[in-house]
């Protein structure tokens, strides 16, 4: 367990809090400049994560939910991607302004990431053991034998049977679930303070999904690390996350503790998501999806980006983009009419 408190009475991004965040993203703007124009992928996103805490970043494809994580890991290809403003702090140190060497050290030991598709995320021409051992050899200066020894321990730890033998196998010889376990082993090799999991179970079978989520939460508890879970899966968020940041069109539209956000949404988009869940008791219920489609990030509407799909929208929404404002302790929403939304929801 983490030595720091994990309660979130004051857990909103903008409020004073008990725990010190280990990783925090502040007002991050990322745009992609293409020939057809500039896409604003992320427009002022802020989030942070404490040791031992799970933050879910929830959003649909194209909402920019992965972009801030990629920015943390230095994975935004430039060109076309550009971080135009904002900051990323790890243990209080600004990462974006730090020299390359320090950024690399943080990526190696401070924050690691796992991806949706472990088959393409692992290098096909090296053994799984080699790819894990590489971390110990490059960053810890260990010899070959000891590095492989540690890699074997890790594979064992993430529940891969006969781990020692499987060290010498290639990624294509692993099953989907085993590959994701190997990715997790690699990400945890140097005991990072934060693990970012970018849709870690989307490519897996449902039964395997549950196993991987269990493994992640077990490891998180054992290592006391912060977990940033990027997902579009409401059930996973409800299951494992402490706090959630709901993203829409490149912005965080609502944030707070998961139970409160899910039971009492303060943003029409979150409300729409909750209403689109098929209820268990009515077997033939027709779903209530959010009407319309997300806006093109190259041509965002003036004012609130959700307004064209919003039942609560007024003239003000089409003129003025609402800021993310505190609605109660530990909760914030980016809606002019959040109180009305909460009354209605």
């Amino acid at each position, binding site marked *: 367990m983490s030595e720091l408190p994990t309660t979130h009475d004051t857990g909103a991004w903008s409020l004073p809090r008990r725990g010190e965040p280990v990783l925090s993203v502040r007002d991050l703007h990322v745009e992609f400049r293409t020939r057809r124009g500039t896409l604003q992928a992320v427009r002022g996103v802020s989030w942070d994560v404490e040791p031992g805490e799970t933050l879910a970043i929830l959003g649909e494809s194209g909402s920019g939910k992965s972009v801030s994580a990629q920015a943390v890991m230095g994975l935004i290809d430039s060109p076309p991607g550009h971080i135009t403003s904002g900051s990323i702090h790890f243990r209080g140190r600004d990462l974006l302004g730090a020299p390359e060497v320090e950024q690399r050290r943080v*990526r*190696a030991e401070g924050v*690691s990431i796992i991806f949706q598709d472990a088959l393409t995320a692992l290098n096909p*021409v090296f053994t799984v053991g080699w790819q894990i051992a590489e971390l110990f050899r490059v960053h810890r200066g260990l010899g070959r034998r000891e590095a492989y020894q540690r890699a074997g321990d890790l594979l064992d730890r993430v529940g891969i049977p006969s781990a020692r033998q499987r060290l010498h196998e290639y990624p294509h*010889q692993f099953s989907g679930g085993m590959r994701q376990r190997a990715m997790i082993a*690699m990400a945890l090799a140097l005991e990072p303070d934060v693990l970012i999991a970018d849709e870690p179970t989307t490519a897996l079978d449902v039964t395997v999904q549950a196993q991987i989520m269990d493994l992640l939460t077990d490891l998180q508890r054992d290592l006391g690390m912060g977990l940033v879970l990027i997902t579009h899966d409401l059930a996973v968020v409800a299951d494992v996350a402490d706090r959630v940041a709901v993203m829409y069109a490149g912005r965080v539209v609502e944030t707070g503790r998961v139970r409160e956000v899910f039971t009492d949404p303060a943003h029409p988009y979150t409300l729409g998501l909750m209403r689109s869940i098929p209820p268990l008791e009515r077997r033939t219920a027709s779903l209530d999806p959010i009407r319309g489609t997300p806006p093109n990030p190259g041509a965002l509407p003036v004012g609130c980006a959700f307004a064209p799909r919003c039942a609560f929208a007024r003239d003000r929404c089409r003129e003025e983009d609402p800021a993310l404002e505190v609605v109660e302790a530990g909760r914030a929403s980016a809606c002019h009419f959040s109180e009305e939304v909460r009354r209605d929801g």
Partner: protein
Amino acid sequence: MGRYILRRILQMVPVVICATFLIYAMNFALPGDPVRALGGERPLPEEVQEQIRDRYNLDDPLLVQYGKYMGNVLQGDLGESLAVRRGTDVSDIIADTWPVTALLALVAFAFEIVIGIGAGVVAALRSGSFLDNLVRGSTILIVSVPIFVIGLVAQIVFGVRLGILPVAGTAQGWVSYILPGFVLAAVSLAYVSRITRNSLMENLRADYVRTATAKGLSRRRVVGRHALRNSMIPVVTFLAFDLGTLLSGTIVTEGIFNLNGIGGIAFDAIRQQDGTVVVGIVTMFVLIFVLANLIVDILYAVLDPRIRYD
């Protein structure tokens, strides 16, 4: 791995048989009578012609001739030249001219690997830059200019004007091979740099490169260890095929630079219908080509572990 290699070697046998038979048959089918041609203006006496035909089994049907020929080849006897160097063993002719051609091809191959891959990597890492455009522009230029033009220009510039490299011949040892080697390599070199560039650029966008970056590895290690090895797979394919092409493509270059290699002999032998020489040389080329392919297939399995288990 051992079984994979053994299987590949066994697969070579029918290839070699088919290829040599095709060459033999084509040579057999050539119009004209090589024995008559020997006499030129003054026809040889009938008895002499008979004797020669008999000695070289020229009256037998194709399959019998081929069978006898292959029987001799397996015993290390490639026959003797009828015309080009009359009476000399084909194996001696090959032994005599082979080193020149092999050295030429190897120098060309080295240029191809070092400059071709090097330029491709630089172009990929600096894509869109001046260097990238320079590489892309010069490759188009090289590919579109005939090789003898490149050869003559290189001779004039480096041999005559600058005087830093020998213009022709092999009198100055390996230095003599630099210019012809480069000219022979030119076109392939352009292809190699193109293939390397595209393959590396594609791999640099791959997910596993993202993972390597996220592991906090240096850019150098991400490119050099992770991306480059995957990118080399198509390059190695091309290089292997090209080794055969280089060897058989030396005729023009040997001519331009006045090198007494196997290409020149092969050219003369075809013109003078010297069947044993043509078939002997081509059979050797086929063997080299097939061996080169075997090496590629093994290299493949080393580069890409997924292949071994297919």
